[in-house]
């Protein structure tokens, strides 16, 4: 083998290793998002998004475009405050980031991922606590910005937020809140966001669109 052939082989290896490293870094980014969500570490969450007007957060509460409106969302409408973490220890918002399928674009600058979000929640509610299981699907767009992968578009399709049967919050504190409808357009958050584009909640039949084609047949998955 000539040195030129060896160089070409090494270059191809470098490209493939870069792709695997990118996938690893993106999985780490998305899982950090989940760990920060558990205790509503708003500053850490906001930092994960790219500082671009194209950044978007699409959740059950509505759609938020641009980093400033995303900041409003994680700050509960008050963008000038700092929320290092939720002050209320009765608040718990575990959303495990599971089942990740990550595809890096050939240019190595953008990527897409599909994930499950699932976890145990406890939301303080009118003097009590509402314990829930939450589940749904994420489709996420990522962008490499100054050598770092960042969140660009986070689309959360919540399928259910279900009160827990036998509860892990004290029965005396229990006050179930069933989140089985999309958030209302007249909520204070809507000053900064748009209502959700779709109702993903069970039993809407909504299927979060797939960024990937069938891995074997290559066929588009229409939903």
């Amino acid at each position, binding site marked *: 083998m000539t040195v030129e052939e060896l160089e070409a082989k090494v270059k191809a290896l470098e490209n*493939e290793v870069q792709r695997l490293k990118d996938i690893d870094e993106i999985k780490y980014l998305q899982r950090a998002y989940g760990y920060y969500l558990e205790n509503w570490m708003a500053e850490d969450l906001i930092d994960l998004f790219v500082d671009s007007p194209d950044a978007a957060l699409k959740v059950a509460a509505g759609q938020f475009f641009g980093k400033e409106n995303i900041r409003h969302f994680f700050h509960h409408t008050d963008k000038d405050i700092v929320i290092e973490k939720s002050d209320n220890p009765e608040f718990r918002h575990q959303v495990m980031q599971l089942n990740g399928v990550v595809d890096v674009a050939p240019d190595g600058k953008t990527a897409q991922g599909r994930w499950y979000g699932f976890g145990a929640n406890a939301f303080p509610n009118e003097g009590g606590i509402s314990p829930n299981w939450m589940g749904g699907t994420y489709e996420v767009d990522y962008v490499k910005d100054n050598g770092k992968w960042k969140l660009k578009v986070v689309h959360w399709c919540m399928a259910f937020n279900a009160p827990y049967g*036998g509860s892990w919050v004290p029965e005396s504190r229990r006050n179930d809140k069933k989140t089985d409808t999309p958030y209302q357009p007249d909520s204070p958050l809507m000053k900064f966001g748009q209502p959700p584009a779709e109702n993903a909640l069970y039993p809407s039949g909504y299927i979060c669109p797939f960024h990937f084609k069938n891995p074997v047949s290559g066929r588009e998955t229409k939903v």
Partner: protein
Amino acid sequence: MTVEELEAKVKAMENELQRLKDIDEIKCLQRAYGYYLEHWMAEDVIDLFSDSPDVVVRVRAGVFYGKEGVKRFFRHGRVDVELKVQDDPKFFHQVMQLSPVVHINPDGKTAKGRWYGFGANAFPVDDRISQGWMNGIYENEYVKENGKWKILKLCWYMTFHASHRNGWIDPSKEVIVPDNPDFSALKPDAPSENSIYPSGFIAPFHFKNPVTDK
């Protein structure tokens, strides 16, 4: 280093990289299976299986052999009717594909994987809906055909399908134990922190923020 030594090093790296790429591709394959299962996208699921006569699906309903058997199971017994997606929006069959351990065999052509399957289900029954939590283990085999990994054997060992409110234990056997057990007999070397809800305890992070490094 001589050119021959470099060649050997590059060849070894290519082999190792191929193994890592194979593991990544198999994980995508198995996770796609999970996403398709949620809405019973039978055609997408069937496409994930090899065309080999050795194909097996082993599930609670029984064992199904060959691609025809796979079609019979995922098309609800009607082999000739394509089923793109479950029509009833009240049907929900989430089986998250979790905790993978994937090993590529030395031949690079076959592989094995162990996974957890776990998720929330809702099955319409007459005009009502049965809701539950499903849990189990997969032990699967994969085969590389024409450069693509496919499922050769899918073995699903379901450990429970539990009603949402009542849990997965026979109610007549259930006993509620206090959630502050006494561990003093174990003579721990030091007390542990109280991480139980609602202590507000946050497990310390070993990593800095991936974007800001703060």
